């Protein structure tokens, strides 16, 4: 009678011949699946783009900057003396500052929405 160790050795040798080979395409198919999965779960970059709060802060900063620039230009600029005498000058500064800031605001908002739409359709 064979010992347990001998039987184990014979069985091990027999089992080596029972090994089945998968098709050559299998590894490629697996990697394809993984790449698809990676695309599905790719982080959405919208979260890293500016938020609504950043837009509003940016808008306010622009308003203040433009107002400041126009006042400075009025004080030290040479060609604005006629405008400076105008009483509605302050209102004009506010209108120009708002227009400039709104332009910045809507441009950023548009970029953000386009990026968001792209990630939703991907």
């Amino acid at each position: 009678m064979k010992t347990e160790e001998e039987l184990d050795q014979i069985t091990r040798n027999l089992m080596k011949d029972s090994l089945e080979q998968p098709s050559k395409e299998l590894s490629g198919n697996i990697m394809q699946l993984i790449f698809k999965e990676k695309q599905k779960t790719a982080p959405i970059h919208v979260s890293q783009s500016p938020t609504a709060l950043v837009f509003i802060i940016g808008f306010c900063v622009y308003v203040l900057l433009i107002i400041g620039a126009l006042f400075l230009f009025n004080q030290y600029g040479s060609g604005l003396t006629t405008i400076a005498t105008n009483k509605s000058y302050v209102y004009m500064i506010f209108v120009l500052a708002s227009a400039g800031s709104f332009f910045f605001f809507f441009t950023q908002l548009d970029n953000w929405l386009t990026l968001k739409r792209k990630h939703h359709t991907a």
Partner: protein
Amino acid sequence: MEEEKWIQQILAGDVQSFSCFVAKYEKMAYNLAYRILGNREEAEEAVQDSFLKMYRSLAGFQGNSKFSTWFYRIVYHTAISAQRQQNYTTDIDDVPASEITEDETDSATAMLENKDRHELITKAMEKIPSDEALLLTLYYLEESSIEEIQQITGFSGSNVKVKLFRGRKHLYAEIEQMTHKAKIEML
């Protein structure tokens, strides 16, 4: 452990590193699934599903067990689910699991010198119950310990030992039957 390095690389976004896992575990995963399902196409499908499940849960691998044990458990459960779906039934003659006889040992030893042994052993493996074939593959080919097999299959330690014993007996009995048939055919 090289698997830990691969996991870190994959989690950092380097999906190409996943091919290391595929290269290392594809063959054994396929063999385990094939032992359970007994069908090439379904085994490959189960292997693909298993790798996908592994990828999805890589971040959750705690390292409490060997990576291979953790992954083969996924393969085992995926293949078992697929087997339930195909409503697989075995038509194996119930061979009593007594001690391995001298004739059976001689036939098995002679088989190792047979040129067509791959085909014959494959046939013999297909005839024995799938759970026994799976345990024989894990124990003798993957060299998993009884404890690791317990973790993979969820069987108790004594159940694993009994199934291994029965599986080996059934394999030897099948080989002996084949050798006997071949002798009769030659006469």
